[in-house]
């Protein structure tokens, strides 16, 4: 699975992209967020406030209960500020 980070999430985590195998026991977005937070450090800090984290799977917005597969592109980012 590919995980992408943008804006200050990227800066706090310290990388724009990670290639991960689907972690054991993780079946949906909520599971992945919990697993990433449990890694501590920048991940825990960046993902601390769920209200400030938006999630896209395969470039489409999804909710916390969206299922995940090993080939998915998951993107985590703060609320958008374009326009």
């Amino acid at each position, binding site marked *: 699975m590919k995980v*992408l980070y*943008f*804006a*200050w999430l990227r800066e706090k985590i310290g990388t724009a992209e990670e290639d991960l195998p689907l972690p054991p026991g993780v079946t949906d977005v909520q599971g992945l967020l919990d697993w990433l937070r449990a890694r501590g450090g920048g991940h825990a800090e960046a993902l601390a406030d769920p209200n400030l984290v938006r999630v*896209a799977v395969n*470039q*489409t*917005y999804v909710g916390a209960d969206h299922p995940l597969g090993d080939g998915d592109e998951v*993107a985590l*980012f*703060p*609320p*958008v*500020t*374009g*326009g």
Partner: protein
Amino acid sequence: MIRVQREDFDPGAELAALTEGDHGVGGACVFVGLVRDLAGEGRIAAMTLEHYPGMTEKELARIDAEAQERWPLRSTLIIHRYGRLEPGERIVFVGTTSAHRQAAFDACQFLIDWLKTKAPFWKLEETAEGEHWVEAKDSDDAAADRWQGQGGG
């Protein structure tokens, strides 16, 4: 139509292209967003727009299609720039044309409201006090929310 690009654009030429040769157009509405040099407290030296290549195009196309479904539009164009921009520079262009002015206005406003809350762009401002990421505004969410469940005309 949508375009995501680093380069500047020419609003006059884009507007002309939107109406060119289509005598069914009664009104064209254009919004151009620019980098302001003042945002609250600090003076802005510049800003950098980060985006999510691939998803940006997908979201803009989805928003564009939604507007075309809600209003009887003759043509639409969304251009959004990314990269480093200085005060006075253009960021975004939204243009709509329709037989009737209200549809052009409503669709143009809808597009910019949705774009502000859905298109994956993030602004990093450079000020005298350093760099900081712009926070999303509740007023933008409210502006986008008013289109929920509201049809076109």
